[in-house]
């Protein structure tokens, strides 16, 4: 029985050895003369055996040692080594470093590149493919074909396909070349474009095809760039929308200018942080801490808003400039209180796994998941606010008080309560904006300060008192900002947008969606 087992073990060990005899055969040659070394490296690379990888890597790094008997060791750190053949630990004493020259180095580079394509680590494979892509030789075709057959990760597959097309373009057969050009055109990336451009000189006969392919890539790239800019603009716009929606209610509907609005956003972000802390010890709840934060942030900010309205703001109705100064003071105090309670440093709010990562849309458009969720969230909040104003009893009372306070009061509406609720509502929306911002910005006491100016610009641009204006305003500013950014840089784009708004309100002082006529005068 024992004998049988031993026999099986021997067989099991021998089987791969037989299959990889190229590896075993070539291994000793790595310790021989430069010519032998280069030839062995080439053959090992072509064989595509993953076990050759550490050995070649060690040779390339100057960590391959040779004992007097010719057997090879791989040195990990000085004083420690393993056998190149088996990977078992060995004593490096007495072994000397195997030297290489430039010719061997070049052969190693190619071989390593080919070998890494089949490595287990996807990142290593990706790096390897990119290395092969740089060399662009027809001799890579078979190995790339093999790699493509085994590859399962889509983004690596795309890279292999690209490398394959590039290598085929270097082949002799014009038909293979044509197929490669078509493949590169279909790939549509910047790299494909530059490969095509570089191949023009070597392939004068195919210049028409290449030119057509480049033109087609240019169109794809322009479209993709436009789509990505649009997405970034929408994403920035939805952040602005979230930050400005609350203002649209407090400023637009109530006429109260709340400079502490940014601090309500900040409170929302800190609530998100606290909810996450609370969920930390309950593993099944942790992924849901962010959705849980939404109502929590709404309630916290709304409560602070209600207290502020009842305690302070209502004494200043009809005095907008005083309200502005007073709320700024309150904002300053809230910010300092948070700074003392939580410290001035950034607090980390984690994104749940379902919000992480990048999504590749058809056509190679890359979008980050959390930005996508913020767009969805922003629009959802807008719809909720619109529904609340249009369909609820509270919304009806709010509209009544806005239109005619005295008549609303005579109809039995408690206007004071409506004021407090409206302000709390607007503040709560700011709190929800804070939940979204915690995903893309640092949660720090001055989080809100950076958004307050932009939010006011959105409301002024869109037209005070119009939610549709806020939506259009936010997305317009977001997109314009992102369109300008590549030309002017982020800061100057922002400055340009501010100047643009100044000029815009020359023509339409009341914003895009202005109320006209008598209603606008009051």
């Amino acid at each position: 029985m024992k004998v049988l087992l031993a026999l099986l073990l021997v067989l099991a060990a021998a089987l791969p050895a037989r299959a990889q005899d190229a590896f075993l055969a070539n291994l000793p040659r790595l310790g021989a003369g430069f010519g032998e070394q280069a030839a062995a490296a080439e053959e090992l690379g072509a064989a595509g055996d993953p076990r050759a990888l550490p050995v070649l890597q060690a040779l390339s790094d100057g960590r391959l040692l040779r004992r007097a008997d010719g057997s090879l060791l791989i040195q990990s750190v000085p004083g420690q080594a393993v056998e190149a053949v088996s990977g078992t630990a060995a004593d490096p004493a007495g072994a000397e470093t195997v030297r290489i020259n430039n010719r061997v180095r070049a052969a190693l580079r190619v071989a390593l590149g080919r070998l890494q394509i089949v490595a287990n680590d996807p990142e290593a494979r990706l790096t390897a493919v990119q290395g092969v892509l740089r060399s662009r030789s027809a001799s890579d075709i078979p190995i790339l074909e093999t790699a493509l057959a085994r590859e399962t990760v889509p983004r690596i597959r795309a890279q292999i396909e690209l490398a394959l097309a590039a290598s085929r373009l270097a082949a002799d057969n014009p038909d293979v070349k044509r197929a490669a050009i078509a493949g590169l055109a279909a790939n549509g990336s910047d790299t494909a474009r530059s490969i095509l451009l570089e191949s023009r000189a070597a392939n004068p006969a195919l210049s028409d095809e290449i030119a057509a392919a480049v033109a087609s890539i240019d169109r794809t790239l322009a479209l993709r760039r436009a789509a990505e800019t649009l997405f970034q603009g929408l994403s920035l716009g939805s952040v602005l929308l979230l930050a400005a929606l609350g203002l649209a209610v407090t400023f637009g509907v109530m006429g109260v200018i709340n400079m502490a609005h940014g601090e309500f956003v900040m409170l929302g972000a800190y609530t998100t942080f606290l909810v996450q802390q609370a969920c930390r010890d309950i593993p099944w709840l942790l992924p849901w801490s962010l959705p849980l934060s939404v109502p929590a942030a709404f309630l916290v900010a709304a409560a602070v808003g209600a207290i502020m309205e009842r305690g302070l703001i209502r004494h200043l109705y009809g005095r907008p400039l005083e309200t502005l100064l007073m709320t700024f003071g309150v904002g300053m105090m809230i910010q300092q209180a948070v700074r003392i309670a939580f410290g001035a440093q950034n607090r980390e709010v984690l994104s749940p796994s379902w919000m992480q990562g990048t999504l590749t849309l058809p056509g190679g458009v890359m979008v980050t998941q959390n930005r996508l969720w913020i767009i969805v969230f922003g629009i959802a909040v807008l719809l909720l606010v619109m529904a609340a104003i249009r369909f609820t009893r509270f919304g009806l009372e709010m509209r009544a008080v806005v239109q005619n306070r005295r008549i609303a009061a005579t109809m039995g509406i408690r206007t004071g309560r409506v004021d407090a609720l409206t302000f709390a509502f607007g503040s709560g929306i700011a709190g929800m904006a804070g939940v979204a911002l915690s995903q893309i910005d640092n949660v720090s006491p001055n989080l809100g300060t950076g958004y307050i100016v932009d939010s006011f610009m959105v409301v002024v641009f869109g037209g005070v008192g119009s939610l549709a204006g806020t939506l259009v305003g936010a997305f317009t500013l977001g997109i314009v900002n992102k369109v300008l950014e590549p030309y002017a840089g982020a800061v100057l784009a922002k400055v340009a947008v501010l100047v643009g708004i100044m000029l815009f309100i020359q023509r339409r002082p009341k914003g895009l969606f202005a109320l006209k006529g008598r209603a606008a005068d009051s």
Partner: protein
Amino acid sequence: MKGNSLYLDGVSVVFDGFRALNNLSLIVEPGEMRAVIGPNGAGKTTMMDVITGKTRPTAGTVRFGDHDLTRMDEASIANLGIGRKFQKPTVFDALTVFENLELALKAPRGTLAALHWRLGTEAHEKIDETLSEIGLTAGAQDLAGILSHGQRQWLEIGMLLMQDPQLLLVDEPVAGMTDQETEHTAALLRRIAGTRSVVVVEHDLEFVRALGRKVTVLHEGTVLSEGPIDQVQGDPRVIEVYLGR
């Protein structure tokens, strides 16, 4: 009688699809006093706004003599000699009665002129004259903010006198006044009217009858009827508008 005539032709004002004025035409001759009446929302105030440059007409011509008023702003129109008295009296509360009149006094309106302006004897006399005319001599150094409603109306009329306009637009001058105040106001207006064109917008038909001049009836932004008060009051269309449908 020298002066310009006010000429409105085919004037329309549209707010968000709502026609506040609809093809309105009106001529006021120099020195004429005209009463404009009409129910709420007939476009009386909008008409005033168009004449004084507060609202730009969507279509139509507005001229004062040779001047195209649709191309001018409020200040230039005021400087042409068109004065306006608002329905709700607006005087400058933080200034004294005297200072209110001083600001209204016909004098260079430029910033530098104002910076170096000194009150001359002639101007001082003119202000004193007006003060006594509006019965506020004693309170000349009081802040306008402490005046009663009637006093504010008179101060505003006094300011119009200081402006010395050729055309005066008066919006509901007696609304919210006591009978006594109304009487005083009517007397003041008659005195002002003397050499100027005056357009009085009023709700109160009795007050208009007392003026005894040509009447224009506005309805839904257009002229419904025009003529002496008796003729207008007999017009079946006017009766329908006023007495309801």
